[in-house]
């Protein structure tokens, strides 16, 4: 295991990042919410997620070729790019979010080409400046870590890796090595937003990861209902909801923030109370 990205020279921004993640997962199961940046009124929608009780925010960076995403997020990417969203806009959204919400962990999620096109150091430095806590890069597996991981770690930004049903016990250490913040367990072998995993398989996978590491484990892909979220939160440290929120952005346009706040609140209650005895 690589060391966690504490820099050792005092109580800097890197420490603030680890504190934000640690605080988000220390309260019990956390709700992790994803929306695509630049699709709809992103700033208002992000505020609605926080107001509704989201503990960690994932902001999607749009890409022309989102290979790992299902129709909902593909279309959100296309809408965002068609509206003219640039990488600079994503960092502006992040910077402003950090100013409004100093304590909520913020993760950028996307694909390697937009993240590395100006060099990983540039991207990591921008993340640092914007107060981004972590990065999920869908298509940089541990084997290609050199393209992003070292630059992020230098900036004290967490690289949040994905583990999947095909990540077996032998491979898991490679995925965990260099991961920090939390581990995102993709509960189905497939694309985002299309199908839900059987709860038993999630229970088994989370137990397997927790046996190998103390890193918080958030589970996502296909989670749409408070009941699903509650079931997952009984075993996992976090529940990730994405496509369902992106659908609300699309359906409700200017009214989306209020709808998102209410929906998020229903998920948050389910997640936060999942471990209370009924």
């Amino acid at each position, binding site marked *: 295991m690589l060391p966690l990205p504490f820099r050792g020279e005092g109580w800097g921004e890197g420490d603030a990042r680890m504190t934000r993640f640690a605080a988000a997962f220390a309260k019990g199961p956390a709700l992790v919410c994803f929306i695509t940046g630049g699709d709809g009124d992103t700033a208002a929608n992000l505020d609605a997620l926080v107001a509704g009780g989201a503990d960690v925010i994932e902001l999607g960076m749009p890409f022309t*070729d989102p290979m790992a995403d299902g129709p909902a997020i593909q279309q959100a990417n296309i809408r965002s790019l068609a509206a003219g969203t640039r*990488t600079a806009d994503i960092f502006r959204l992040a910077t402003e979010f950090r100013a409004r919400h100093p304590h909520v962990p913020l993760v950028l999620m996307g694909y*390697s080409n937009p993240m590395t096109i100006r060099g990983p150091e540039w991207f990591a430095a921008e993340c640092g400046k914007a107060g981004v806590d972590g990065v999920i890069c869908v298509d940089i597996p541990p*084997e290609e870590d050199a393209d992003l991981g070292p630059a992020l770690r230098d900036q004290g930004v967490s690289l949040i890796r*994905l583990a999947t049903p*095909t990540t077996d016990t032998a491979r898991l250490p490679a995925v965990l090595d260099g991961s920090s913040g939390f581990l995102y367990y993709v509960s189905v*072998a*497939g694309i985002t937003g299309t199908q839900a995993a059987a709860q038993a398989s999630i229970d088994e996978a989370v137990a397997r990861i927790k046996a190998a590491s103390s890193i918080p484990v958030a589970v996502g892909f296909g989670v749409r209902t408070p009941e699903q979220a509650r079931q997952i939160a009984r075993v996992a440290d976090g529940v990730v909801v994405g496509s369902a929120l992106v659908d609300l952005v699309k359906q409700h346009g200017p009214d989306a923030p209020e709808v998102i706040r209410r929906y998020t609140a229903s998920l948050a209650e389910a997640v936060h109370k999942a471990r209370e005895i009924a």
Partner: protein
Amino acid sequence: MTVQTPIANSFRNQPDEQGHFGKFGGRYVAETLMPLILDLEKEYRAAKADPAFRAEFDDLLEHFVGRPSPLYYAPRITEHYRALAPEGKGPKIYFKREELNHTGAHKINNCVGQILLAMRMGKTRIIAETGAGQHGVATATVAARFGLPCTIFMGAKDVERQKPNVFRMKLLGAEVRPVTSGAETLKDAMNDALRDWVANVHDTFYIIGTAAGPHPYPELVRDFQSVIGTETRAQMLKAEGRLPDMLLAAVGGGSNAIGMFHPFLDDPDVGMIGIEAAGHGIDSGQHAASLSGGKPGILHGNRTYLLQDEDGQITEAHSISAGLDYPGLGPEHSWLHESGRVKYVPITDTQALEAFQLCCKLEGIIPALESAHALAALPNVTATMSEDQLLVVNVSGRGDKDIFTVAEHLGFEM
């Protein structure tokens, strides 16, 4: 499929163990796919070392594909360019006749190899992406031959543009799934094939059509296509008693070119030119020339030259040839380009159309529009080569599929 003896400073010992060709290539895929491509690599290593695998591959190439394909001396094209060239210039032009293969292009070589790998791995379902439909037809063909269900992802626009090939695939028993995401062309078909693969990794094998994608695809597609260059080498030695001086091949993803070039890479006296599709011209912004008009980036599992904007968003490619209409190319070409071993030049739609017609009239061969791009480099290349030199053009496919496109451009109503 030839066994190579590693030599120092060889151009033929790529990729490295991590699948990198210099800084290009690699394995940029979602975690779900990683265990599978690691498995594929292991299985490919075993297959490569297994004489029975090679014997079955060679047997199918001979009896099912119809190999070896001829190396044909093209006398009238030779005379045509010799007459245009300065005194003493104008090399002897040969065609490597890949268009005579079963299904009409080089694509089938790779499909035969990959379906044998699929069966070796116990996979029971085949998927593939296709642009013009040639790789789709070749994949549907081998799937039919071995009785495996097959789904072909094809951009909805291409389904509309390439109806004869859509029908061929259906006749061969494949399901053709129109892709409506993005620009509805080859790049989007590849995205959807990857999405299907991620969801069905347990039983599905993805037959990628070109020497691109995550490692080990660029390597294994190259190896299966290297039969083109290996045969050319032997055939030229037999015909002329020496190696060719120059090789020309069109580069979309680049599988016919890498198959032709790779066996010659360590012969320093053999020149090589890859021809990119320049569409309406590099300056027009409407082209598919990743090396001439793009820069390195990551897409579809590998780092390579791509058409993209400054934010790394992939831009749409354009070429009259649907088979070249892709915003990237195989990583080994990016490496060969930067190392200087192979030269890459752009050819426009208009130049390709002229070469297409000339080849029909002078040689009685209707080439694919892809191959017509390679033929279109002849005016410049032949003017600088002497009469006693030898040049080979890889005629990678036949042009029957393209006659509708060409008719439209020539104003002929079909």
